[in-house]
């Protein structure tokens, strides 16, 4: 079985969890004899290609001939994101307008004719344009390669997935790692939402990283439940080494590590810290990360008068993150909304017991973490206090948590994904036979 997979990033150059997940999944698929052509906008050449063949979209010439370009154009002209719906227009006027519109599209389309497009592969200001050009190149790639199923990760690659499907007629699987609702709360960017929904509607099957995300897809994007399957993420800790650090302070340390944004629930961490500090001063709290609620958080901590026991580190990366886990006694992820959430697994892998919000996807796969509602500051404080005070609680969550985390293998997730490939392949064969 051969898969044409569209991603946005791949290790070692990653800025989020998506690249890591793609890496783990493709390695798992390789073990199940699934071959993956992995397309990304901008590859650096130092990606680990042991399990995948990387196609760098920046290297692909979209179209060789004008005829090719014309047939493709017919199939992928939907790529323009501007809406064609103009109110109060008669049918004749509408046709006229549409012709004009198609002409414009063709003009922009021609620019890429015979050329390569250098993608940044970042999440910059011209992201929308890159997303569209990526789809254009995707359609070319879909013509140049043979494969059985298309698999596209998140909204950035949805258009690429649709384009490849139109060109090749192969079934499309859309993998949702996060939705616009997770990123922004209720204040969604309509353009992004539309792209997500178009991808979901065009897909033959949608993979959600948690039941939580699956519910969002069903309820907010109005997709039929039968089409959406949950496959929980896994983690690959095979290369993680144990780490020992010398502590500078005698107190135990409770850590928040992540972006300091609405989605991550930093304010609940602060309020719970305040409650714990009312009872005991034998503990320090650390908030590691940066984000748009950073300053507000500092002000709140100062106002509560707990600054002497509450520390901000700013943004941490790489080694510092690992050191932070090694310094921690309790890890807290009070996310308001978290499609999956890999960081508690990293904490537990480092022997740090975790408190996670029930509103996270990872809560669905963990038994040996303490789960609270993100808004329930009392329960959160109580869990912190319990882990700091009651030794048996600590040793049990650490011991069983480690076993549990080590059992979350990409191998298992990949097997489920392969089943999904098989199912969509069968369906598409049936449809062509009829």
């Amino acid at each position, binding site marked *: 079985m051969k898969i044409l997979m569209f991603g946005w990033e791949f290790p070692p150059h990653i800025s989020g969890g998506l690249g890591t997940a793609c890496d783990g999944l493709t390695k798992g698929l390789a073990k199940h004899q699934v071959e993956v052509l992995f397309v990304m906008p901008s590859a650096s050449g130092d990606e680990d290609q042991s399990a995948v063949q990387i196609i760098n979209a920046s290297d692909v010439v979209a179209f060789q001939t004008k005829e090719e370009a014309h047939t493709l154009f017919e199939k992928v002209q939907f790529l323009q994101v501007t809406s064609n719906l103009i109110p109060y227009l008669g049918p004749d006027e509408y046709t006229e307008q549409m012709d004009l519109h198609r002409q414009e599209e063709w003009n922009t389309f021609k620019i890429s004719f015979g050329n390569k497009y250098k993608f940044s592969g970042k999440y910059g200001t011209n992201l929308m344009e890159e997303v569209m050009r990526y789809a254009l190149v995707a359609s070319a790639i879909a013509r140049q390669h043979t494969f059985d199923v298309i698999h596209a990760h998140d909204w950035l690659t949805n258009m690429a997935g649709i384009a490849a499907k139109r060109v090749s007629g192969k079934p499309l699987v859309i993998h949702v790692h996060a939705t616009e609702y997770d990123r922004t709360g209720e204040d969604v960017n309509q353009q992004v939402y539309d792209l997500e929904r178009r991808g979901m509607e065009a897909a033959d099957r949608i993979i959600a990283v948690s039941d939580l995300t699956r519910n969002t897809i069903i309820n907010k994007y109005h997709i039929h439940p039968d089409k959406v399957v949950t496959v929980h993420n896994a983690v690959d800790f095979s290369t993680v080494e144990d780490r020992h650090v010398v502590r500078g302070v005698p107190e135990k340390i409770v850590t928040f590590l992540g972006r300091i944004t609405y989605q991550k629930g930093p304010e609940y961490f602060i309020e719970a810290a305040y*409650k*714990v500090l*009312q*009872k005991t001063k034998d503990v320090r709290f650390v908030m590691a990360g940066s984000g748009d609620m950073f300053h507000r958080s500092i002000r709140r901590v100062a106002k509560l008068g707990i600054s002497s026991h509450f520390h901000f580190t700013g943004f941490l990366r790489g080694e510092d993150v690992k050191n932070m886990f090694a310094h921690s006694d309790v890890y807290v992820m009070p996310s308001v909304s978290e499609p999956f959430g890999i960081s508690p697994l990293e904490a537990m892998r480092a022997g740090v017991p975790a408190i996670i919000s029930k509103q996270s996807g990872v809560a669905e796969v963990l*038994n*040996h973490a*303490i*789960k609270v509602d993100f808004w329930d500051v*009392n329960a959160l*404080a*109580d*869990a912190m*206090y*319990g882990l700091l*005070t*009651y*030794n*048996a*609680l600590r*040793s*049990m*969550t650490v011991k*069983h948590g480690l076993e549990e985390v080590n059992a979350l293998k990409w191998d298992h997730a990949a097997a489920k994904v392969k089943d999904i490939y098989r199912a969509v392949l069968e369906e598409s064969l049936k449809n062509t036979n009829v």
Partner: protein
Amino acid sequence: MKKTICLYFQVHQPYRLRQYRFFDIGKNHSYFDDFANKTIMSKVASRCYIPTNRLILDLIREYGGAFQVAFSVSGMAIEQMEQYAPQALDSFKELAATGHVEFLAETYSHSLSSLISPKKFKNQVLMHKKAVEEHFGQKPKTFRNTELIYSDTIGALAAEMGFATMLAEGARHILGWKSPNYLYVNALSPKLQLLLRNFRLSDDIAFRFSDREWGDWPLTAEKYAGWIAGALEKDEMVNIFMDYESFGEHQPAETGIFDFLKALPGMILNHTNLEILTPAQAAAKHQPIAPLHVPYAISWADEERDISAWQGNEMQQEAFNNLYALEDRIKKSGDMDLQRDFRRLQTSDHFYYMCTKLFSDGDVHKYFNPYSSPYDAFINYMNVLSDLTLRTPK
């Protein structure tokens, strides 16, 4: 000689804890969820205790002495009935007055004290014995330990306290090829006779009665009496022991459980070689077949039939040890409120909630559990225990 059937029902309700946060420690000494306890007791009384007692009373009147049953009612259940459902308690007293119902002794708090020390265990049993005399006007001769926890030493202790008979689980790993359907004796004190639960026939009612996936659904009294008669073709006695809440609560009235119970005595007595006796009568009538060797404690819980449901992990052990470390000082304090709270915190259910087997083996655990995770249960219990520790004089 006629073959014997023993029916015994366990009546127990724990005092459930309220949500007790760490910032309550040292400030708030009310630990129990009065609302939940009252609601549950009222519900169970009206769905199970009162209607089933009435049915059993009618059956006793109908069959005279030919239909008899046994109960043990934990001190926690007695107290909560007094508080929240006095009619239910009255209906048990009414049953006691018929002379055809045996009330057994157990630990007052439905506690695990038999696993701690003989002295603490005996205190608990004596206290319950007194409560049975006071409420039901009987001096218990038969003993049943919390959750049917039994070992050679626990049995010997019961014998020392003057009990002639004790109930235990017919655990497969103890019996091996032997049948539970005979009278056995304790390996250390042969004068203590043992009635062993036939778990298959007991669970047919308690767990499987309403299970439509079960090949033998629907279970009729006639079919069931036939199974008993079949088991007694060779063997001597069948002991059917279960939670009383099976009637009307775990198996709701709509399942037909009451019709089943109503028809059962008639169907059993249709087999003219069968009789229904109380545990004390049954033990007095039959000859023991062999001593039973139980070096490690067994119980009627879970697949393992051991004590791992309450003592299987570090949290349970830590909570357990911390609790009993306070006992002597609490007794010495003479503080009645403190002693009452201590009694209620001993109930085995609190430890059951902390069981981590829940994750693998656990529909039954989930059913009885007010907590969403054993970790939550432990945190809550330890917060309460921290406050109890502060209240206890040094």
